[in-house]
């Protein structure tokens, strides 16, 4: 067994831009890997949703990027990074209903303005770092055990 906090698994998944037909594949693979490690079903479910929404965001709105899955004994971390365009107002994108999706994406059922809120809701820790013109990094952490708020 690795030491407390050691990394059990680390995987990097590239996400190309505009490839929405492929989107969902990373989420499927992440859930498969987590199940293989014996992660709790609720953790697998939440990670699957966070990953799918993040993957769709990279595919729909950015010039491409990648997803990094890190599994530790205590937590599952998902890191999403892209090459832009960046988010000007992070508080705004966290508001349910806000979306910049183009019409073609809305017709496919994207752009409900719930992607980032869904990611945040299914994470225990959630941080967005963004610089307009450069890119966005999102770190979502899911606890594998319920932490007693004490």
């Amino acid at each position, binding site marked *: 067994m690795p030491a407390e906090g050691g990394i059990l698994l680390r995987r990097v998944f590239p996400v190309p831009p505009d490839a*929405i*037909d492929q*989107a*969902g594949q990373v*989420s*499927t693979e992440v*859930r498969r890997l987590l199940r293989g490690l014996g992660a709790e079903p609720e953790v697998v*479910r939440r990670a*699957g*949703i966070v990953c*799918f*929404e993040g993957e*769709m965001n990279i595919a729909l709105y950015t010039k491409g990027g990648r997803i990094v899955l890190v599994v530790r004994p205590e937590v599952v971390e998902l890191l999403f990074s892209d090459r832009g365009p960046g988010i000007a107002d992070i508080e705004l994108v966290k508001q349910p209903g806000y979306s910049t999706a183009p019409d073609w994406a809305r017709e*496919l*059922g*994207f752009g*409900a*303005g*719930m*992607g980032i*809120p*869904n990611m945040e*809701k299914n994470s225990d820790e959630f941080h967005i770092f963004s610089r307009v013109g450069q890119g966005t990094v999102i770190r979502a952490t899911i606890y594998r055990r319920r932490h007693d708020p004490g």
Partner: protein
Amino acid sequence: MTLAEVAAALGLVPLMEFDPDRRVRWGFCSDLLSDVLAHAQEGDLWITHQRHLNVVAVAKLKGVAVVCVRGLRPSPEVLDKAREEGVVILTAAEDAFELAGRLYHLLVGKP
């Protein structure tokens, strides 16, 4: 009720084989993928107009079966992916309003 009973009662056409004992918990009507991800529950019948590849991913994530309304059918490519992922897709002749109404009455036991 089981999915087989619901499909028979509502005249839904399954587009692949499925476990006839699979339970239907409730219905969920939406064309917004994130709405389904946020609010649908495992065992729901997801009534939608969407029929592209991402529908399979969302249905798999949430453990719901999909009903495409107004006779809409996904492409063979989407159906192949659904079979591969164990996602069940059916099609209904009715529009979403009528199908949702009939499913509601069926599940709550009213005429």
